[in-house]
């Protein structure tokens, strides 16, 4: 029965939040317009009616204070899930996330833990322009003490939110806005998606593609196209930005001898840089038959014009062409 359940990505997160709140009264939600408004992307939806204002807290527009209050509540025994309306606004709260939450356990000699979850709607494609379209996961992936997740399917979205809420450490979950509406199978029970494990979404032998979130879907599309040409691409869904599941990637590259990293964030110092470096320093290096390809976001802010916005992030056609060149030795 639950085999047949289909939910949207946002409904899956909504279900995870509801189940966590049902199961543990310490769990509560904070954020801007997550109450009667239901959240800017309608993820919290009706939760305020089910759990009331105390557990679904509309905050003033105060990201530093709001996120910091979540951190303080976590240290003091509650289980906050803080929603940034757009992950771009987390810039106002970097101090509390990175100087406080990420370091507190270490600085205090392991005497406290900080079980806070930050939900980070991210990505471009909505015409919201430069300040509402960023993919900042690489910043947080650079911070010891944090865990950073990026689901690509409704099933993982639910499982990662539940795993994040269970986890005693600060966890950020990046939710690509264009994924909220996609549908997929979502089990009804309270399962957790393991933190730090990548998954092979498509088996292949000619090249390995590592991607996350929406880029997994674009990579799979590209792989379909190339399959028609007899090019067989293996697609790995990274899922966890920190920690990174290096073993799964190494194993795949040893088999395919070719690696491409596809990501929406700015190319320079984006997650593809780390994937590439991890392989280039690993035992898999000797197996490489071609340079490591990176397709990342353009070195520009995200523009408003739809034409330019499309040009600023990897698109399927470009991915197909680049992977073809990679496999046919033209790179």
């Amino acid at each position: 029965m639950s085999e047949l359940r289909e939910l949207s990505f946002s409904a899956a997160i909504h279900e995870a939040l509801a189940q966590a709140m049902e199961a543990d009264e310490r769990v509560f939600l904070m954020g801007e317009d997550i109450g009667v408004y239901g959240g800017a992307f309608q993820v919290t939806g009706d939760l305020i009616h089910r759990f009331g204002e105390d557990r679904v807290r509309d905050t003033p527009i105060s990201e530093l204070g709001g996120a910091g209050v979540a951190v303080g509540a976590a240290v003091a025994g509650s289980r906050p899930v803080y929603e940034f309306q757009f992950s771009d606004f987390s810039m106002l709260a970097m101090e509390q996330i990175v100087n406080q939450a990420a370091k507190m356990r270490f600085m205090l000699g392991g005497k406290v833990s900080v079980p806070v979850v930050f939900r980070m709607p991210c990505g471009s494609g909505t015409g919201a322009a430069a300040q509402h379209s960023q993919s900042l996961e690489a910043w947080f992936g650079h911070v010891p003490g944090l865990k950073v997740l990026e689901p690509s399917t409704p099933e993982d979205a639910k499982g990662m939110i539940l795993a994040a809420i269970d986890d005693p450490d600060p966890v950020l979950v990046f939710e690509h806005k264009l994924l909220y509406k996609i549908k997929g199978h979502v089990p009804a029970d309270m399962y957790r998606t393991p933190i730090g494990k990548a998954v092979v979404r498509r088996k292949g032998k000619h090249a390995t593609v590592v991607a996350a979130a929406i880029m997994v879907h674009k990579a799979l599309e590209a792989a379909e196209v190339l399959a028609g040409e007899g090019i067989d691409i293996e697609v790995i869904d990274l899922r966890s930005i920190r920690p990174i599941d290096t073993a799964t990637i190494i194993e795949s590259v040893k088999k395919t001898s070719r690696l491409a990293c596809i990501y929406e964030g700015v190319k320079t110092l984006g997650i593809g840089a780390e994937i590439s470096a991890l392989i280039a320093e690993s035992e898999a290096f000797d197996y490489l038959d071609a340079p490591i390809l990176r397709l990342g976001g353009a070195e520009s802010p995200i523009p408003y014009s739809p034409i330019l916005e499309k040009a600023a992030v990897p698109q399927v056609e470009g991915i197909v062409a680049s992977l073809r060149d990679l496999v046919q030795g033209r790179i």
Partner: protein
Amino acid sequence: MATKNQTKPDVSGRNLRPFYASHSPAQLKDALRRMHLIRRFEEMAEESYVRGLTHGTMHLSIGQEASAVGICLDLSDRDYITSTHRGHGHCIGKGAEVKFMFAEFFGKEEGYCRGRGGSMHIADPATGNLGANGIVGGGLPLATGAALAIKQRKSKDVAVCFFGDGANNEGAFHESLNIAAVWKLPVIFVCENNQYGMSVSTVRSTAVKDVATRAIAYDMPGVAVDGNSVADVAEAMAAATERARRGEGPSLIECKTYRTKGHSRSDRNRYRSKDEIEDWKSRDPIPVFESELLSHGIVTQAEIDGLRAAVEREIQDGFEFARGGTDPKPESLMQGVTTTGDIAEGIGA
């Protein structure tokens, strides 16, 4: 509240309040024209969404035109403003042309930002408009900094910072007002309190009833005025501007107003009542201003009709101009990222 104390009698011999006494009929008619232009621009912008001509989101200020116009009326192009995500009114109030605004909406090269910014970033440096902002409170330090630059070059210009009631709970509000006060900068902080930050009422978000009260925390003058009355807004602004130009420092003006449209396209208006909306509509700033002008005999109904017709033409022409605009070329993506890149491409700063 200090203001220009010129007074003069109106047609019926009544003494006119400072706002009417200190502005010529031409100036007052232009103020009304700008309010109509803002209103029609936004109605047309909304329509173009429905017709799928623009993407992204947009925030309409319908119902708030009095504060935009009342604040900008006496500013010159050398005075700066920083605006917000709800900035069309400020932009037009400061002197922007609707055709370039429409072009920006449609993502065209002819747009104020060459189609790179869209509704949330429209700016017009030529008229001193440093831009709308996608970040709530983002303009507060920027306006304060512009005021510092003004002071450093020893000019008498001012910087005006528009922000919303929701923005008044951002740390940037506190830090900016404190710095402006300590350094006596020529900046005027204008809070457009439309009662809600998106879905959250000021009662639920803000510990004080009047944002203006917070001026006490910075030892600066703070006044709350009827934001639907151009006269009230402009008189408060006159006092603040005089103070700033005298070198006495910043002021905070709170304009109590209301947005009759939803926060943005996706708003379902779950957080407020129809009655509340209707009640505010009955105090629409445009009819209010028109009836004052008529009763003072400053303008005739015929003039109003003429002015509205002219606005309509400007809107239609601007809309057509924008529709016929040029789409950016994908290859031009990197332009404007840095000056180095631009100089390399030969377009320069």
